[in-house]
């Protein structure tokens, strides 16, 4: 059996090589690139320097773009949570054919490309599109309003993209709450609000925490949505990084910006995890 086990360990080699060579090495490469001097003709030079970091961290313009990216992602994660919780709750109570149908409804957007889904919002929010016409028909607005190329649409489309990532972990956590726990507290006279606040919400936290972190990390680095729906007026970190890499060909500067974005994301996630640590501990107890 020892031999069989060694054989099995060997089977992992191609995957390890794949991840190491095409992911770990490239990201190390990016770190190295951020210390290179700018090139005269090529995208980068031969020598090393700290100039990109002093430039990036010393310029309030970059801090502003970074703040916009971090805040937008925070808003997206929060809105995602608000939208996803009822869906996850509803899904966790369904079973059989109904559950299968609901899973399909949630998975279909997940398996459709981000670009396609963003394009859908361009049609929905067009001046003579279904959203404006419905709101006018309902008498909520009198004039059609333009949502395309605004920060609002970027946030709306990002929430739409990430809802499935939030619904699935929360749904799993909710399914683990025993029904009789809820029934017991209701029969002991707990109000609807108390049951939600003291039982459902804390016990669903093991799903909420990873969901929020995942959506935040994905939203901070999302490129397509701001590029397609944000227009030229609003710059986010990912659109700026890609412009440096493919437009102006300043690879070292683009790398420094990417590292600035990564470090600040790690910092935010770290703070969030620390702040919510005690809540998680309480749930485990």
């Amino acid at each position, binding site marked *: 059996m020892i031999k069989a086990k060694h*054989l*099995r*360990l*060997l*089977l*992992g080699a*191609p*995957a*390890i090589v*794949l*991840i190491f060579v*095409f*992911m770990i*090495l*490239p*990201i190390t*490469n*990016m770190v190295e690139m951020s210390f290179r001097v700018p090139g005269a003709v090529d995208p980068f030079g031969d020598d090393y320097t700290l100039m990109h970091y002093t430039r990036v961290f010393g310029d309030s313009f970059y801090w502003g773009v970074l703040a916009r990216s971090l805040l937008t992602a925070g808003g997206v994660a929060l809105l995602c949570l608000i*939208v996803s919780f*009822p869906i996850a709750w509803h899904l966790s*109570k369904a079973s059989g054919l109904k*559950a*299968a149908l609901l*899973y*399909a*409804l*949630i*998975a*279909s*957007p997940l*398996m*459709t*490309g*981000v*670009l*396609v*889904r963003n*394009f*859908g919002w*361009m*049609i*929905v929010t067009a001046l003579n*599109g*279904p959203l404006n016409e419905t709101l006018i028909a309902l008498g909520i607005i009198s004039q059609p309003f333009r949502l395309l190329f605004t920060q609002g649409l970027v946030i709306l489309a990002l929430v*739409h993209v990430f809802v499935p990532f939030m619904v699935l972990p929360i749904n799993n956590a909710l399914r683990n709450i025993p*029904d009789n726990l*809820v*029934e017991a507290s*209701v029969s002991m006279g*707990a109000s609807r609000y108390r049951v939600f606040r003291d039982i*459902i919400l804390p016990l669903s936290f093991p799903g909420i925490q990873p969901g929020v972190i995942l959506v935040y*990390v994905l939203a*901070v*680095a999302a*490129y*397509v949505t701001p590029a*397609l729906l944000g227009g030229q007026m609003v710059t986010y970190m*990912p659109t700026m*990084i*890609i412009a440096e890499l493919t437009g102006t060909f300043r690879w070292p500067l683009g790398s420094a910006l990417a590292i600035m974005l990564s470090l600040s994301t790690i910092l935010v996630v770290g703070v969030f995890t620390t702040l919510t640590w005690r809540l998680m501990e309480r749930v485990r107890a």
Partner: protein
Amino acid sequence: MSGGATMFTQQRPVGFGFTLLIVLLYVFLLVPLVTIVGASFTAGLLIEFPPRGFSLQWYREFFARRDLVDGLLLSLRVGAITAIVTTIVATMAALCGQALSGKRSGWFQLGMTLPLLVPELLTAVGLLFFLFKIGLGKTVLGLQMGHILMSFPYAYVSITAALRQVPSSLDEASASLGATHWQTFRMVTLPLIMPGVVMGAIFAFINSFDLYTISLLLKPLGGNTLPLALFDFLTYEFKPTAAAAATISIVLSVIGVALVQRLVGLQRAF
């Protein structure tokens, strides 16, 4: 009192307000997709929803456009190769992961899902430099490697989940009857995990078909994948042809969802 019970226990009717909220949220999830499909069949000249009449003219227009069709063909080809390669490598890796235990197993799991956990943007930027350095910059092979990397975790997770359902006693029984490792894998394990393997291939294909950022940075000279071609198209011409192209992509993913549902059930897939 009964209000509290209806809200939180199974099988009892929920309030009208909650039902309305749920319906609205599902409308929110599906409305962009429905609008695209609807708009692609318009007989008019503009992208609009509800569509004006019914026609297939924009599909004809799509297939007459070289740039879009070339994009579709490149996406299909890269997606198919991605599905095949990732499924083989991921099956091997899943067998390896199963043999590990304790802390090592956790680290292996983390390593194998890394491309999913690190934002695509960072991987794409790193790969742009790395492929340039090793001479694969702006080649189809470079793009292909990026897609294989990004789709690998989907196949790995599906196949690992399938492998967990196979009792280890079957392996031992097969070995004690004198079967070689390869025979045990071919005749016992593989047939049992086949639904998971196929599901992994479907996820890998669809993920590859939808990738954008990594394709943008690694795109080969003169070659566009369908999402890249569609983005360019949308920037210059906002015509229903784009809706037809997007509908083709939606149909592919709906077929994928239906296949996964039939094979293993979505509930277990997620």
